[in-house]
């Protein structure tokens, strides 16, 4: 790996003779993602930058683009920004398809220039007025949105940096930014499990334990208001919003539980979605068109994944793999592009994350190490957050379903039930 880098670096030294080159040499190996097949991910050279919070901004951008798993980031971590026109040929030889120039203005605004190496031209230029105070969560989120723009310009697919993951820790709900920073409690929540995001990213739903059973609560994060939407005593849990945001579906029941749909803006009363006849039916997850719902059911004795029309008609067992094959499969999450359903399946007594391709019902197991549960798709339909005990305690991890790359998202006190937000347009 290092040998392959040395030659272009020497060329760079000869051509530039700049301190930048020596810093590059010192930083050989900063190019991230070399372990993956070359050619599949465009290289992006991130130039050194100046400004009051240059280091923070650049660190956030580089990390976001790396975590996106679609770009090979080449980022020497010091040096001076080059002046004058860019030597595109040099960056091409360094393996970069694009070069990113970032400048922080005196008023705090951030200007981005994206160069396309192959065409030797400026691809995009944009200045982001950032009003939030530096290093606050809102400021970080603003930088994350810049990352997502850059990823979209380079790859054609929008990134997922400006998202959060809500999870259960110590009986209540917490949130963490997609890069693992900014861990904070969700205000106003007492007991909180099974968090779910409204498609607008401002409203959430979750399960709440009380002395008289469990309830489903819908909470407006911006206004700080909350209301119980479960309509009967008993077990009420695992809420999920329909893609149009108008309906909440959750599991409810006293002796056996079924899925029920509640219109959030009023109108008709709760509508039954499953006919469990006394069995367990839970963990609904909508298809992106809102016409179907994947869920777990114990109607055959062991929990398995089913798909039903969202009006309750035509439920079908999804995870058939063979006669007499009754595993323990649960916690389905329908990918936002509609192509896969992720779930947990018991293999040799431990849960592992798997995805089933809806085109041909082929199943791909994504984890091996430790016990891995509770998958939730990122809005890019490529990354998943899940709970794993591989580090010794249950923590949230992020997995790239295409490359298999994983990273630990949370540390410290036990964390579980991660729910990945939609792309957030609010701080």
């Amino acid at each position, binding site marked *: 790996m290092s040998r392959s880098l040395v030659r272009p670096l020497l060329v760079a030294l000869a051509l530039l003779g700049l301190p930048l080159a020596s810093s590059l040499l010192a930083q050989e190996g900063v190019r991230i993602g070399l372990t993956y097949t070359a050619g599949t991910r465009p290289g992006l050279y991130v130039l050194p930058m100046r400004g009051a919070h240059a280091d923070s901004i650049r660190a956030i951008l580089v990390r976001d683009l790396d975590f996106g798993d679609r770009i090979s980031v080449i980022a020497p971590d010091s040096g001076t920004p080059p002046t004058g026109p860019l030597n595109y040929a040099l960056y091409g030889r360094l393996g970069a398809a694009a070069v990113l120039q970032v400048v922080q203005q005196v008023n705090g605004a951030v200007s981005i220039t994206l160069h396309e190496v192959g065409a030797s031209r400026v691809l995009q230029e944009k200045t982001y007025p950032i009003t939030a105070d530096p290093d606050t969560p809102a400021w970080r989120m603003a930088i994350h949105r810049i990352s997502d723009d850059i990823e979209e310009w380079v790859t054609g697919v929008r990134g997922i940096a400006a998202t959060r993951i809500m999870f259960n820790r110590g009986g209540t709900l917490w949130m963490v930014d997609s890069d693992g920073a900014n861990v904070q409690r969700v205000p106003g929540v007492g007991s909180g499990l099974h968090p779910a995001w409204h498609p607008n990213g401002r409203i959430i739903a979750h399960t709440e334990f009380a002395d008289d059973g469990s309830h489903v609560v819908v909470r407006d994060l911006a206004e700080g208001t909350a209301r119980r939407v479960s309509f009967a005593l008993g077990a009420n849990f695992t809420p999920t919003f329909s893609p149009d945001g108008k309906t909440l579906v959750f599991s409810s029941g006293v002796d056996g539980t079924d899925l029920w749909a509640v219109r959030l803006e009023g109108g008709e009363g709760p*509508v*039954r979605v499953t*006919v469990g*006849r*006394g*069995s367990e039916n839970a963990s609904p997850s909508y*298809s992106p*068109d809102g*016409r*179907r719902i994947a869920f777990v059911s114990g*109607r*055959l*004795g062991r929990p398995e994944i089913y*798909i039903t*029309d969202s*009006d*309750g*008609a*035509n*439920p*079908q*067992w999804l995870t*058939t793999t063979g*006669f007499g094959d009754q595993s323990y499969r649960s916690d389905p999450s329908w990918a936002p592009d*509609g*192509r896969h359903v992720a779930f947990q399946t018991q293999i040799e007594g431990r849960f592992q994350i798997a995805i089933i391709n*809806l*085109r*041909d*019902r082929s199943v791909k197991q994504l984890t091996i190490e430790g016990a891995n549960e509770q998958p939730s798709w990122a809005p890019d339909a490529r990354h998943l957050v899940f709970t794993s005990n591989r580090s010794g305690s249950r923590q949230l991890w992020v997995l790239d379903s295409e490359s298999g790359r994983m990273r630990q998202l949370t540390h410290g006190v036990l964390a579980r039930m991660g729910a990945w937000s939609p792309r957030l347009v609010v701080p």
Partner: protein
Amino acid sequence: MIGRRFFRLGLAPVVILTTGACFATRSDVRILQEDLQVVRAERVAADSALLRAIDAVTADLTRVSAALADLADTARASSATMMRLRGDVRSDLQSIGQQLIMIQELTGQSQRRIQELRAEMEARAAELAVPITGDTSRPTAAASPGPAQLYQMGQDQLRRGSVSSARAAYLQLLTQHPTSDLAPQALYGVAETWADEGNGVAADSVYALVVQRYPRSEQAPNALYKRASSFRSIGQTEQAMSIYRQIVEQYPRSDAALLAQEFLRGRP
């Protein structure tokens, strides 16, 4: 005896009154006194006999009531046993019911699985039928997919959102294998593809066709339920309710009937 004495007793005052003291002799008085004594003694005897009888009856009553209490205890005990037995039987019945439902489900799922296997077999057969040598005289007929394969193709395409290829697969099944037992499901699938595309009118007419052509199929109550849902979504509640009632009456054991009942609840 008693009658005469009573008569005499009753007579005595009359005699005394009528004859007057002047006519009454000493012996008369004595006789009367004796009579009175006899009467008194007899009354005492009668009274004590009565008392004894009452005592006896009371004793009998006590015995009877004790026996009744025993009986009540026994009855209570046996009713408790009955209750327990009934409870046990009920929970046994419940678990049998659960098992029955499970068996029904398993049968349904096995049928689906058999379909899938049939689809696979058809696919393999088609592969094998592809001529290995240079003989390409009848390749299309040999490679033509079977009904199960077509149905599976339709289902998979539908689930991943490829509506038109799903519809093509279902229609191919219906035209090439019109008598297949998958035909009702394929027709239902065609309706689904229209519904997924947002063409409610087309979907509704095909759902109606499912009920008309295959009224005894598993898909008939589902198709009716779909029709009711679309009526409800455009505000034609009465029409929807009448279909819900139809489902409950004609297909009382279907899942669709249970779903329909939720909408009929609280309505005439």
